[in-house]
């Protein structure tokens, strides 16, 4: 921890004392303390044992329904500022039409949580980053609002906050001058709720087009579905290995 005040750094003394004590203890009884390191009371946080992802079934995504978008806005405290061009959009409905067959497809588009995210590559301040569990996020403490990531993202997934904000959601501190995007409801995952706001809303509407889960767990529903169906990544040619995949596209 940095120490930016006029006090002597007691942490340093404590550290030296603790190190000496630990070394002594290890010399006396090697191995005794080896398991103590994992006994911390706090939550362990994001782990590379997981990779969170989503599977969106475009056949189930209903035309005219915006439950997921509304839920996302509520969950993260996104409000319209009356200027649609610059309003924050974390998840949006997209309608595709095949001009040959006239087949129409509805889907939702949001941050695809790439394994190799271009936004992280271009960020000059390491504000764009990928968590251990694969969630790509913006650390607003470091974001300088340069918007390189917005240019780099092939999915147009990020928004820039243009206005001074008040009454933010506790879930999602956000403010003017920072870029932001879908966090895959990281605050829920960290609290142990394994369901995103959009998925919850979609299920409540009876569509169940969104399936959220752990791509690294072979027994998760999403892994099983991916194993047995023909899902696609959007712009798979970019080889970003997205965490969000689509069915029947």
């Amino acid at each position, binding site marked *: 921890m940095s120490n930016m005040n006029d006090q002597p750094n007691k942490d340093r003394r404590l550290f030296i004392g603790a190190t000496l004590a630990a070394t002594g203890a290890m010399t006396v009884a090697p191995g005794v303390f080896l398991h103590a390191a994992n006994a911390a009371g706090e939550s362990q946080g994001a782990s590379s044992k997981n990779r969170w992802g989503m599977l969106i079934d475009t056949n189930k995504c209903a035309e005219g329904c915006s439950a997921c978008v509304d839920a996302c806005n509520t969950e993260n405290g996104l409000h319209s500022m009356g200027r649609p061009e610059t309003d924050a959009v974390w998840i949006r409905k997209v309608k595709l039409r095949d001009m040959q067959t006239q087949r129409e497809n509805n889907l939702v588009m949001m941050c695809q949580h790439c394994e190799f995210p271009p936004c992280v590559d271009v960020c000059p301040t390491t504000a764009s980053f990928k968590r251990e569990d694969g969630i790509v996020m913006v650390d607003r*403490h470091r974001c300088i609002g340069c918007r390189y990531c917005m240019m780099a993202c092939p999915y147009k997934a990020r928004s820039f906050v243009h206005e001074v904000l008040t009454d933010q959601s506790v879930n999602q501190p956000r403010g003017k001058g920072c870029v932001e995007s879908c966090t895959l409801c990281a605050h829920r995952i960290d609290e142990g709720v394994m369901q995103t706001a959009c998925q919850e809303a979609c299920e409540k509407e009876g569509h169940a087009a969104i399936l959220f889960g752990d791509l690294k767990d072979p027994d998760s529903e999403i892994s099983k579905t991916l194993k047995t169906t023909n899902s696609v990544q959007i712009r798979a040619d970019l080889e970003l290995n997205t965490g969000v995949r689509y069915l029947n596209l």
Partner: protein
Amino acid sequence: MRSSLISKRLLILVCAGILFPAMQAFGESALVTKSSKAAKLSSCVAPTGDIRRNHMDYLKHDRDETVRDGIRGTKFSLVECVECHASRDEQGHGVPVTDEGEFCQVCHGYVAVSLPCFQCHRTTPEPDSKNGKLGYHPAGSFHNQTMSQAVGRQRD
């Protein structure tokens, strides 16, 4: 020479004699706002003097853990600061901690240190923050039923 040295020492002693009780009184004075939760508690999450001096370091340390490593429920949390220290108006609504005369603003205004935390962070406790914390949850939904079991741990 010697006498001037003694008189200087005396002066310092006298000054210290006056200042020390004053500082002690300052240190023990209750600076929490009256209608906040903090007013009912005997101390902050750490000894008050420690928090007064080091809260900025603690918060800065834990913010990286929370944002980048996903470790929630750390000992020092800005949300908890606001939850506990925001005073309530007659209707029971939280008053922004950055308003004139409120908990954060009083000291920060006095020492002329800006409070950029609240460009992004909420300045009032979220209404109904215990139940509605995760948003979009009509009564009796999945979240309300199973949150306590699903989480299985307390927030500090």
